[in-house]
């Protein structure tokens, strides 16, 4: 009973932390999915006096493609209302239009930076970012992602405190065994083997529980979020990589806490 209680005292904060982490991973996945969807439709239009040379990246974002807009098409659209001389003049004076496609959807800040970078190109006259349509929802999603990340950070800190407290209790409980093994020449790490075993057991248990909770959330997501937000959720929300990340985190955080305490214990 005592062993079970101490096992759960360790596993509980770990599960909470892992669940928070999995929520963060889901939100990140949703944001990335939204970003990928809108980036296919999104382009910045620039008007230049002379043909535009190649641009590799803007504000640190790779430029996927620069597509020139057909000048003939533009002239064709307006030629009915113009005389031949005006059309000839228009052909000479009409600037060059380009659509710039990016590798990822930029944030408002990045857009401002992109605008500034493009303005430094001497032959560019005008820039249209068309960002307002997507930007509000995108910013909101980024805000939610950041809030969850901060919450995850806070839960992580609290969990580490609780984990270290429980590991200290285990060290205290195993103190006699540890000192006997050390009297026989066993190292502190060797004598702490039983504690490492409990930690790894708890970590495995916690990662399984957190994955089950994540699975329950994903399969019932339509009950959790508003129906109008369902468009943001990908139809297939594959989480294999995320499950792997949860598992790795469940092992790494307790072990780092353990080794931190081990060093402290050794220094004492």
């Amino acid at each position: 009973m005592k062993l079970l209680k101490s096992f759960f005292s360790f596993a509980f904060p770990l599960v909470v932390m892992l669940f928070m982490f999995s929520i963060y991973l889901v939100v990140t996945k949703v944001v990335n999915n939204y970003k990928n969807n809108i980036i296919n439709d999104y382009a910045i239009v620039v008007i230049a006096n002379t043909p535009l040379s190649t641009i590799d990246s803007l504000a640190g974002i790779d430029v996927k493609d620069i597509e020139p807009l057909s000048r003939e098409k533009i002239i064709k659209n307006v030629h009915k209302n113009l005389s031949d001389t005006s059309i000839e003049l228009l052909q000479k004076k009409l600037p060059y239009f380009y659509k710039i496609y990016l590798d990822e959807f930029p944030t408002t800040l990045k857009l401002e930076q992109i605008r500034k970078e493009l303005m430094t190109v001497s032959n560019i006259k005008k820039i249209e970012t068309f960002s307002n349509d997507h930007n509000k929802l995108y910013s909101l999603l980024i805000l939610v992602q950041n809030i969850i990340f901060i919450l995850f950070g806070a839960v992580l800190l609290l969990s580490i405190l609780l984990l270290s407290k429980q590991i200290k209790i285990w060290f205290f409980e195993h103190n006699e065994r540890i000192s006997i093994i050390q009297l026989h020449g066993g190292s502190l790490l060797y004598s702490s083997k039983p504690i490492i075993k409990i930690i790894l057991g708890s970590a495995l248990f916690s990662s399984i529980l957190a994955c089950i909770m994540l699975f329950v959330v994903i399969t019932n997501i339509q009950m959790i979020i508003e129906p109008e937000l369902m468009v943001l959720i990908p139809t297939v929300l594959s989480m294999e990589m995320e499950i792997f990340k949860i598992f790795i985190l469940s092992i790494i955080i307790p072990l780092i806490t353990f080794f931190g305490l081990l060093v402290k214990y050794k220094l004492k």
Partner: protein
Amino acid sequence: MILAKNLTLSYDNKKNIIEDANFMIKEKEFIFISGSSGSGKSTLLKSFYGGIPIKKGNLFVNKFDLAKKSDSKLLQMRKDLGIVFQDYKLIQEYTIEENIMLPLKVHNYADDISRSQVKKLLKHVKLSHKIGAYPAELSGGEQQRVAVARALAHNPSIILADEPTGNLDDYSSDMIWTLLKNANEHLGITIVVVTHRIPKDMGIKYRRFNIEEGVVYEAS
């Protein structure tokens, strides 16, 4: 071999428990350390396995200078010692077999070799029938025999025993003395025993150090 040069020991840096001790314990010797209660005999023994820091002087155990100890070297040095305590210091969660196997595991002996060594030792201390029992199921005398078996398991060069018969009746005490004598006579292990009660008829050659008011001297 244990060599003390101007050895001074203190727990709190104020009062010295052992002061300016000079002595040498040669290989294969049987040594008793005696003195009145609180004289510092257990403290002196403790210093032999690095259980107390050295305030002044030098203490060499198997050529290892305990005054300049580093953690890893200290553990290495302890691997060549067997230690027996008055309160046995057996791990309660381990069976008798696992307790005796402990030094062998620390030495990375293969499991089958360790098990056969444990069987031999349990036969030697007449506890073969208790192999799977836990320390709490054994009497004080039996637990101390297990502690002696554990101290012998890895064939150390020195066995340090702190009041090994302090809590035992005469019958169990005799068995422990016999085991220690045999280890010294037949295996050539140096034995250092702290005791206030030296058995009358040891039947082997031994030396005795006495401690009085922090001064260590060889008694006749």
